């Protein structure tokens, strides 16, 4: 079964059509990059994959459930199976980094004490052990991206959606984040990364099997072999 499917989807905004005839199928364990110029609709497409935006026409299915017909609780349940790393990662600023990362566990009603070892392991995996007790405003851009990634994967979701995850970080950090995403993909997670960083996409191709999609003239198409 596909984890996320978009069928002939269109999205209009402010009187103009941003996306048209978009069809996308994310199979379990797949790794996709989504490219295109700024304002092409990459973030909009990711938001539709997350159920945050409803298409003007066409069909969106999350884990086999059609989006407009889903109840709010069912949508929340589907979102717990999707780890989202937004471009501008938002946190609860009154909680520590560790509390923010473990928030999905709290929301899912899991026992925090039982998950303590997992949390420590995850903090070490994203290199934030020393920042566990800091608050989000104290983090750098790269640290925020890594904290967002840790929060996105703590519930072991089926899909990772990342929107420009390397937008605010240097090359070294972007490679580190990429390695984390590749590692997650090897663990069987589907990954969809929106990025205009072509060097990152080329680096990913050397590490795993990646399909590159491009939004051009409102439509989604496979990118050429040059990528």
């Amino acid at each position: 079964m596909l984890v996320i499917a978009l069928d002939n989807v269109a999205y209009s905004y402010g009187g103009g059509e941003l996306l048209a005839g978009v069809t996308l199928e994310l199979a379990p364990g797949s790794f996709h990059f989504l490219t295109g110029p700024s304002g092409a609709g990459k973030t909009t497409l990711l938001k539709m994959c997350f159920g945050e935006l409803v298409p003007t026409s066409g069909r969106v299915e999350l884990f086999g459930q059609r989006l407009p017909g889903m109840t709010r609780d069912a949508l929340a349940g589907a979102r717990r199976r999707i780890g989202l790393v937004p471009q501008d990662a938002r946190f609860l600023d009154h909680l520590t980094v560790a509390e923010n990362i473990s928030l999905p566990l709290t929301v899912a009603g899991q026992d925090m004490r039982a998950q303590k070892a997992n949390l420590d392991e995850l903090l070490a995996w994203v290199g934030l052990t020393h920042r566990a007790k800091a608050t989000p405003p104290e983090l750098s851009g790269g640290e925020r991206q890594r904290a967002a990634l840790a929060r996105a994967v703590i519930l072991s979701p089926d899909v990772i959606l990342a929107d420009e995850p390397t937008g605010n970080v240097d090359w070294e950090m972007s490679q580190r984040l990429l390695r984390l995403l590749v590692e997650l993909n090897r663990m069987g997670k589907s990954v969809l990364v929106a990025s205009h960083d072509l060097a990152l996409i080329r680096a990913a191709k050397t590490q795993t099997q990646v399909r590159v999609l491009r939004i051009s003239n409102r439509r989604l198409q496979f990118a050429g072999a040059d990528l």
Partner: protein
Amino acid sequence: MKAFLRDLRILWRGDASGDRVVPPSGYTVRLTIFSAAAMGFLAVMALALALSAGRLADDWGGALARSATLRIDGPLDTMQERTEAALRVLEQTPGVASAQALTEEEQRALLEPWFGPDLQLESLPIPQLIEIEKTPEGFDAEGLRLRLEGEVPGAMLDDHESWRKPFLAAARALRWLGWGAMVLIGATMAAIVTLAASVSLAANAQVISVLRLIGARDDYIARAFIRRFTFRTLTGAAVGTGLGLIASALLPDAPMSFLTGIGFANLDWLVPFAIPPLAALVAFAATRRAAFRTLRGLS
């Protein structure tokens, strides 16, 4: 209703981690606590009024219903003779437990508030009053009136009905006024908590957005706010109730006045302790309604 009770159970159980998702600060904290305290205080006062009025109605109703007064007017030279005749009639009347003519001192004491302590009763054409105590069954007032008319000239029987009815009506109106004030206070508190919760939800749109991002269900988000406002209201109402009880205890006694007895008596003192939990229940329902309405409105 099922969801309401489930949320109430979860609230009772507590959720330490869930409590922390909403930032603790904000002026709605002070607004809610202050309003709950003020409403708790006013509720104690309204409760005191309602309970006192109830007591007053019972006292007046009971005392006046159990007694009657016979007044004997007319020439003073035959007063003694007619008084004895009236007492004889009363002794023979079924439903009269006792009948006693007021002494000169008792009549003087009755008139003292108007004429002062040095009143010479002999110089005034004062009627003789006879105080009648009824048996629980009471007597036939009309029959007694007819008999007195024939046997005791100038005798006027007052069975207190004309006094009792307006007194009772006034006391009952006061009691309803007190309970009505309680309902209004509850409704006002619900409105204030709804307003404060709505403001808090709007101010925490970012928090809600983050919680939704990580897959929080509406009932999880709502519960975080519900707990916050319910416990704030409980705290405020407890403080207000405590102050109200102290104020009630310090209310001065006003003997022989209409206000005599306003306050709590005996077990009545326990009733105000129900105000904080009731206020918390009102806050729970109001916040829950506001939270779900707001969350439904947010995309």
